[in-house]
């Protein structure tokens, strides 16, 4: 009987000890100073709230994997889709969280968080571009939002095509790739031309199903990748004359992404293992012979930094692991390689 009483007493004490868990909520208000280096947007994974900004310090070589959280004591949100520096601000487009995070470019402290909600629906912002006193944000609900860079208020919503994505500037006009990606198999196949003085759409040009990337070419031309329907219509990239609205050239290569590089385009082939160089003047392309892609697991994005003459290539490294950024000079020599967050995409260079 004594055994049972002792046993019962010990048991109750065990239950109470097991049930009481001390909460350790420590706050860390340290702010990392930003000077020379690279700021990387890591998209993160859908529904995991793990979009992040990685800071690579060019002087020390130190990497701060989530500098946004370090400097703001909170997370960036879910699925960072685009980032740009405009003036002394950094604008980060966070797609699933449906916000634009505006940061002071010198401190990376949040200045303003702009909610992108229409009624009870998320607008799902995708890409961003600055012009004059405004920044323009393509939203998946079929609009381009115009945000005043002083008040950070949305001053106008411009109706464009279905599920707009990438943006580019050409002759004081904003070009918007309308993917229509949420309407398979009847996806959109147009780009919208928005007059930046009137802040309204003035024209649409048919360029091919599911347009994604759009890049300014020479004179009145843009290069567009139409990504096909992921089934029987294969991706193609095209040269489009914006004035005439004509597709002047259809290229047969299966291109995932492209980036302007001096007077050429860097093209990533969809097998992720080949990089081509396309001369916009000569209209000819050749396989890259200066950067080896053999060490990349999942080549994710390519970006040319014109002010430093550097080519940055991001590696998604299996998409569910921390990725890498490799920085090459224009001769293809690897200058830096550092670990970043999940699915690194955009890079801003600090000098």
């Amino acid at each position, binding site marked *: 009987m004594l055994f049972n009483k002792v046993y019962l007493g010990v048991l109750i004490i065990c239950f109470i000890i*097991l049930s009481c868990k001390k909460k350790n*909520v420590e706050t860390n208000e340290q702010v990392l100073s930003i000077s020379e280096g690279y700021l990387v947007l890591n998209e993160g994974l859908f529904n995991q709230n793990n979009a992040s900004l990685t800071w690579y310090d060019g002087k020390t070589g130190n990497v701060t994997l989530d500098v946004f959280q370090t400097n703001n004591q909170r997370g960036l*949100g*879910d699925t960072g889709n685009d980032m740009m520096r405009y003036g002394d601000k950094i604008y980060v487009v966070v797609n*699933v969280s449906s916000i634009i995070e505006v940061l002071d470019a010198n401190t990376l402290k949040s200045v303003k968080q702009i909610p992108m909600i229409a009624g009870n629906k*998320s607008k799902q912002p995708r890409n961003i571009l600055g012009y004059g006193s405004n920044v323009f944000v393509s939203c998946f609900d079929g609009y381009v939002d115009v945000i005043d860079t002083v008040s950070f208020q949305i001053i106008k919503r411009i109706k464009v095509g279905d599920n707009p994505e990438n943006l580019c500037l050409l002759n004081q006009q904003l070009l918007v790739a309308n993917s229509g990606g949420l309407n398979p198999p009847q996806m959109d196949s147009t780009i919208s031309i928005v007059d930046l003085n009137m802040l309204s759409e003035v024209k649409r040009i048919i360029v091919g199903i599911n347009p994604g990337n759009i890049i300014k070419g020479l004179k009145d031309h843009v290069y567009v990748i139409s990504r096909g329907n992921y089934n029987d219509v294969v991706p193609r990239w095209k040269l489009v004359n914006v004035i005439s609205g004509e597709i002047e050239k259809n290229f047969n290569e299966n291109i995932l992404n492209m980036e302007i590089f001096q007077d050429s385009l860097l093209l990533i082939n969809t097998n992720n293992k080949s990089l081509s160089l396309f001369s916009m003047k000569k209209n000819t392309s050749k396989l890259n012979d200066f950067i080896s892609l053999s060490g990349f697991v*999942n080549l994710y994005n390519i970006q040319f930094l014109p002010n430093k003459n550097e080519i940055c290539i991001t590696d998604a490294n299996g998409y*569910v*692991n921390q990725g890498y950024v490799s920085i090459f000079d224009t001769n293809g020599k690897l200058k830096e390689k550092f670990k970043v967050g999940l699915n690194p995409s955009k890079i801003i260079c600090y000098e």
Partner: protein
Amino acid sequence: MKHLLFYLGMFCFSFSLLAQNQKELKEIVILQKQDTFSLNSLDQQITRKEIQAIPYEDVGVITQKIAGISLKNYGGLGGLKTFSFRGISGNHSVVMLNEFALNNHQVGQIDLGGIQAENIENIRFNSVSDPSFLYPVSSLVAANSLNIQTFENTFSAEKYQLRFNSKYGSYSQLDNYLSLKKGFQNKSVAIYGKRRSFDGAYPFKYMNGENQFDAIRKNNDLLEWNTGIHFSSIKEYKRWNAAYHFYQSEKGLPGSVIFYNDFASQRLFTKNHIVNMERIVCKNNFNSKTYGSYQTSEMRYSDPSYLNNKGELIQNYQNNSLSVGEVFNVNWKDSTLDFFGGGEYQLHTLVSQNTTLVYNPKRHIGMFVFGAKIDKKGYLYHLQLNNHQVLTHKIGGFSEYQSIFSGNIFVEKKSVIKVIGLPRLQFKRTMRLPTFGELFINTIYEKELKPELVNQLDLGTSMYLNKFKVGIDLYANLIENKIVAIPTKNLFLWSVQNVGKVFTQGADLSIEHNFLNESTISIRTKGIYSFQSALDYSSITSPSYKQQIAYIPRHTGTLDLNLEFYKKVLFNWSTTILSSRYALNENINSNLVSGFTLSDVSIAYSFKTKKQSEFKCNFSVKNLFNASYQYIRYYVMPGRNYLISLSYAFQ
């Protein structure tokens, strides 16, 4: 109003039955399953009494009381709940309701959150396929099986039986369950119904960086109906069972907590029909069961926030499954040798509208099992060989045929060895087929996809130590050709491939102590601890190589204390412990999901009348210490909440 009329009707029917005179019944031989030693992690059982003592909400929560099981709980009441056993995903398990397998070939797993628990007589988890149970062939060839035995399915010689349970809980939870069973001379019929509703608007806390935020769960409501009818007939050495079950639910899908955006508005409508029939024959040395089951599940997913031209996404899926089979065991000339075997044919189809599937898949499966059980010189040997014949229809009229063999061997000592107890050893190799969802992802048919294979090795023993019952199992599992979904060219284009390999080592420890003083108090304590090291061996170049796979905790445990006073007052304290897990296979801090300790307490008062009626009143506090916890990252769980339950049982 509709459900009020439903309950009125049920009540009128029940009391008209009770008012009739009872007649004496002839003695009926009931075919029952034999219980085995309880602390064997290859054959675990949770009884009705244990279930009634805990503040359960569905079968999912109860399965945490099974050693080796890791629950994936995507929310409280009404939330999706699936489980894995020793690092082996739930796709390898067969969930059975009254010994009929529940099928879903679209996702391959059954949502345990949708299975009601009020009528459960016992839950049995088997990793050793014992042929004497006459389980369907599909469960014998699976890695493990979970059988849920309900009150309606148990044959009773009583003329009338009635069960009623009503619950009211936090967040407007309202459950009502009523079941009536009428016994005839050698037949019985049972009818049951349950309605459950819940607004789900519970407060929760979550961490964003270093800050803790408070919020209210939105779009988390639930309304569901369960109803069904059972017929049972016993005549000499034969038993017939037939049953129809209907389930309907409408619920909000709150999803994971998304920082800065709480506008989730997705909804899910489900309607299931199940028709089961079986004929069991137990004659001399020959036992057999012939069975058939037809199941159809309609699912409608709607997303009014979807940004397409229609302004809403509506997707419809209909899963249909037909299975017929025969299973038998026979004793060889009154010897210690038993043979068993069986065959089952299954047909699965999936029809969808407005989805990415451009093809409605169809699959025929033939399953065959043959084995022997030998009881010799104090040892029990069990040998089994399985074969799957699979025919999957592909796009364009082509078909793919596969033939896969598997099997297992099990040895158990039948008498106690000093110090060691009752040792057992099992090796089992099983497989699971790719689901329709994996085969037809993104409109692409994954033609190279092979079955996922599991090899299980277990060495265990059961023993008595002083006044404690103890069960210990050491195990090692190897999962080959693990089916993994990975993005290909970008995050929009996914591919499903056999690239995974997982090696799991671990141990299960169960300890039970019972103190019984008939007149005053009984004390029962039970503790379960599981250690699982489930490591990713997929690719030596991967950052997650030899790291713990996602959502498998290294340590899990439960501790239950039941105190019963004068057989009237029952106090229960139940604690569940989960160590930290990783949300992704890469074991880094940013993927870490905190562990938690969860305590539930309940106190019940019950009394019996002379007319064989029992009333019971139960008050429970769930999450007593208001822990902020998540099983799956950002799928937040409710804080402290309360539940009052009133039950009535006749006979």
